[in-house]
C-alpha cells in the first residue's frame, strides 16, 4: 500500500569508537539514559512524527538489535499495514553482498522501499540522541520544492572540524559541503538526517552503485554528486538537544545531561514520549542505609550503598558500603560491598568485586590504560565481566573481554555471555 513517507534507519555500523561496548552489539543497541537504547530515539521520533513504516538496516552484531526491536510493539510499530522491519543484508540469486556503506545499504533495499511506493524517504542514523519532528522537516522540504533536505545543527568553529559542514545561501539552499574541513566556512553540521524525493534518490543510488570509484556513502558520494548536478538541496536548521554518542566521552556526557541539563533533553515531555522496550521488573528500592542523590534510576534497581551523580539502568544492584559516583551503569550491573566507582561506564551484567576501586586518577603505566577509546579519565568496564575483589583500575582504562582472560589476569575473574536484551 502506498505511503507518503517511510523512514530507513542505518543501524548496521559497528561504532568502533565505543570500544568494548560494541564488541557484542551494534551501537544503536547500546543502553543509554537509564531506561533507553540509543535506537529508541529515532524510532520514537518516527512514531511521534506520524511515520508508521520504518526499515531498520542491521549488519554488525545484529542479535541484540533484532531482539530489541522485535516486531516494533514498544514503539507502536506492530502494524498490519507498515510497521517496523529489520532489514539485514541477504543473498541474491547471483551471489550475496554485505552492506558496503550507507548508500549501498539503501540501494540493496530498493525493492523494500518500492513496496510502499513512497513519495519521500527519510534516511536516519541510529546513533544520535535528539527529539525531532520529522513531519516539520517534510513540510519544509515540500515548501522549498527541494530534491533533498539535510538537517543541520549549529556547532562551534572548533567542533566544526569533526563534522560534515554545510554552507547554505540566504534561502537555505546548500552551496557547499565539506567533510571534516580544516578551515570550516560555516558552522552548520550535518546531522546525518536526509529527506529525499524517492524517485530521484532511487536513480542516484543506481548511478552511485555503477560508479566503481564511489565508496557508496551518503556524505562522501551521494550528497556531493547532487550538489555537483545543481540539484535543489536545502539545509533544515534544527534547534534543541542533539548529541552524537559515538565516543565514550560523548556517551558519558550525554548520559550526564539527563541529570545536569534535564530541561534540554526533557525526557518527561508528555507530548514527545521516548518509547522503549520495558523490562518486566518491580519499582526500584532504596534501602534504609542508602544514599541516592543527583541521579537517575529505573525499575528493578536495588540500592543499599551510595549513588551520586550517576545514571543507573534497570536491575542494577549497589550493595552496602559501595560508592558510585559520576558513573553510568548499564542493565544488570552489580556493585559489590565496599567497591568504589568514580567516572566509570560499566557494560551490561558486569559484576564489580568487593572493595574494588575503579576509576579516578590516571596511571599511564597500567596495562588497561587506553588513550585511543577512553578520554577525560573515564574508565570503561565492558559487559559480562566478573571482576576479582580488592583490585584497583585507575582512570582512563578500558577493561574488556576481547582480551583473553589469562590465569595471571589481576582484574578479571571470568567472562559471561551478555543476554541479547
Amino acid at each position, binding site marked *: 500500500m502506498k505511503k507518503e513517507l517511510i523512514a530507513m534507519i542505518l543501524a548496521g555500523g559497528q561504532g568502533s569508537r565505543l570500544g568494548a561496548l560494541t564488541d557484542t552489539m551494534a551501537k544503536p543497541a547500546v543502553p543509554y*539514559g*537509564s*531506561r533507553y537504547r540509543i535506537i529508541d530515539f529515532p524510532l520514537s521520533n518516527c512514531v511521534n512524527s506520524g511515520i508508521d513504516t520504518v526499515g531498520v538496516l542491521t549488519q554488525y552484531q545484529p542479535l541484540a538489535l533484532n531482539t530489541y526491536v522485535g516486531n516494533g*510493539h*514498544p514503539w507502536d510499530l506492530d502494524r498490519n499495514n507498515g510497521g517496523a522491519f529489520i532489514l539485514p543484508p541477504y543473498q541474491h540469486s547471483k551471489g550475496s553482498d554485505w552492506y558496503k556503506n550507507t548508500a549501498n545499504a539503501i540501494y540493496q533495499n530498493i525493492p523494500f522501499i518500492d513496496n510502499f511506493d513512497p513519495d519521500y524517504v527519510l534516511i536516519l542514523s541510529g546513533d544520535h540522541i535528539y527529539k525531532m519532528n520529522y513531519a516539520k522537516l517534510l513540510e519544509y522540504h515540500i515548501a522549498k520544492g527541494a530534491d533533498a533536505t539535510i538537517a543541520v545543527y549549529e556547532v562551534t568553529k572548533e567542533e566544526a572540524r569533526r563534522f560534515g559542514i554545510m554552507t547554505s545561501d540566504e534561502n537555505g539552499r546548500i552551496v557547499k559541503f565539506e567533510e571534516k574541513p580544516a578551515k570550516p566556512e560555516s558552522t552548520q553540521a550535518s546531522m546525518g538526517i536526509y529527506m529525499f524525493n524517492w524517485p530521484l534518490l532511487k536513480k542516484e543510488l543506481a548511478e552511485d552503485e555503477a560508479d566503481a570509484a564511489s565508496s557508496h556513502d551518503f556524505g562522501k558520494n551521494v550528497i556531493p554528486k547532487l550538489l555537483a548536478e545543481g540539484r535543489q538541496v536545502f539545509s533544515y536548521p534544527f534547534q534543541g538537544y542533539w548529541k552524537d554518542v559515538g565516543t565514550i566521552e560523548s556517551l558519558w556526557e550525554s548520559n550526564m545531561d*539527563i*541529570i545536569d541539563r*534535564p530541561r534540554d533533553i526533557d*525526557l*518527561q515531555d508528555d507530548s514527545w*514520549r*521516548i*518509547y*522503549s522496550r*520495558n523490562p*518486566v*521488573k*518491580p*519499582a*526500584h*528500592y*532504596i*534501602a*534504609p*542505609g*542508602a544514599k*541516592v*542523590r*543527583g*541521579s*537517575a*534510576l*529505573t*525499575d528493578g534497581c536495588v540500592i543499599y550503598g551510595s549513588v551520586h551523580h550517576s*545514571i543507573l539502568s534497570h536491575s542494577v544492584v549497589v550493595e552496602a558500603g559501595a560508592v558510585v559516583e559520576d558513573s553510568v551503569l548499564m542493565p544488570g550491573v552489580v556493585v559489590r560491598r565496599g567497591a568504589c566507582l568514580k567516572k566509570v561506564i560499566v557494560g551490561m551484567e558486569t559484576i564489580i568485586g568487593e572493595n574494588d576501586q575503579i576509576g579516578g586518577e590516571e596511571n599511564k603505566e597500567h596495562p588497561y590504560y587506553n588513550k585511543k577509546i577512553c578520554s577525560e579519565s573515564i574508565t570503561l568496564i565492558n559487559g559480562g565481566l566478573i571482576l576479582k575483589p580488592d583490585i584497583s583500575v585507575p582512570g582512563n582504562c578500558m577493561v574488556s573481554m576481547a582480551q583473553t582472560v589469562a590465569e595471571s589476569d589481576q582484574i578479571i575473574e571470568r567472562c559471561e555471555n551478555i543476554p541479547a536484551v
Partner: protein
Amino acid sequence: MIRNTCGLILADDKRIHMGDLTRPRALSAVPFGGRYRIIDFALSNMVNSGILTIAVSTFNKYKSLMDHLGTGSAWDLDRKSQGLYILPPYISSESYTGRGDDLSGIISFFREIKQEYIIVSSASCILNTTYDELMAYHRDKNADISVMYNRDGYKAEAPVTILDMTRSGRVKGVYENPLNPVSNRNSLGVMLMRRELFVEILGEAMSRGTTEVNPEFYVKEFDRYAIYGYEYKGCALRINSTQAYFDATLRALSEPTRTDVFWQKQPVFTKVKDEAPAIYSEDCEVRDSMISDGCYIQGSVKHSMLFRNVSVGNKAKLTNCIIFQDTQIADGCELENVIIDKKCVIRPGIKLIGQAAYPVVIGKGAIV
C-alpha cells in the same frame, strides 16, 4: 506448566469496600506496589502457569480495569486463538433486573471453551506463584475441587472464609467471618476444578437466583463434592480493607515480603507506561522506599511507596506514605501515614498526618 486449563478472575468483590480507593474502580484495579494493579498478580500467576485462556469478570466500574487490561498484550494474551476475555455483566433481557443476568455471560463463555480444568481466582489476595503444585495436589487427592488457603486466619480482618478440614485435607465446614474461628485456615480465593463441574455448579446456583460468583460459594458444596484444601506456604497479602491495603504495601517494602511478592523467578507483568527514569535531586533524601519511573524527588521520602510520575517538592517530608501515579506534592508539605490517589495536587506547606492504624486517604484528583 499446567496444560489444558483456563482461568477466571473475579475482578471485584462486593464484600470488600475501600472507600475512596474503590469508589472510582473495581477492587482489582486498585494500584499496588508502585507500578501494578492488584489484578496483575492473579493474571501473572495464571500466565506464568501456562494458562492461555483467561476471562475477567466484573459487575460494574469496569472503565479503569479495561483501560489497564487493554488487549492483554502486556501479559502476552493478545492472541488469535485463546487470550484475554473480559466478561462484563451480560444483559440478556431488555428489562434488566440484575438477577442472574450477571452470570449468564460467564456460564455461556465457559460452556463453549474446551479446556478440561478451570482455575477461579479472586483478585483480593496478592501472591506471586504458579499453580503447578496446586494441580499436582488436586490430582493426587483425586479431588473434585481444590481450594488454596494459608494460615493467617486469626489475624486477618473480615471478610474472611475459614475452612474446617479433616486430617486428610478434606473440607468439612466453611465459615464466613466467624466470631470464634474453628481453625486458622483462611481461604485465598483460588480454586481448581474441572470446567464442566464449574459450569454445572454455577448453572444450578443461577437457577436458584444467585447473582454473583465468589470463590467461597464453591467451597460451600462440601457435602456433595470432594473438596480439598491446599496450603499455600508462600507470602500472601490480603487486601480486604483500606487498613489491610496500607499495611500490605508497607510490609511489601521490607524483606522477606519484598522478594516473595515482587522478586520471584516468575515476573509480575503489568501494562507499561514508558515514563522517563526517576530523577533524584542533589538535596533529596530517600530511605527504605520503592520509587517508580517518572518520579522527580527533591524532598525527603521515608518508608514509602511512590507510583509512577510522582513529584515531591523541595523540603517536603513523606513518611509511611503511598502516593499513586501523577500526584504532585509541592514544596514543604509534611505527610505521614497517608494514601493519596491518582492525579492529586498537594499545595505548598500542607500538613497531613494520619495514624499507622488509621491512614488518611485522599481521593482521586483532589486538590488539597
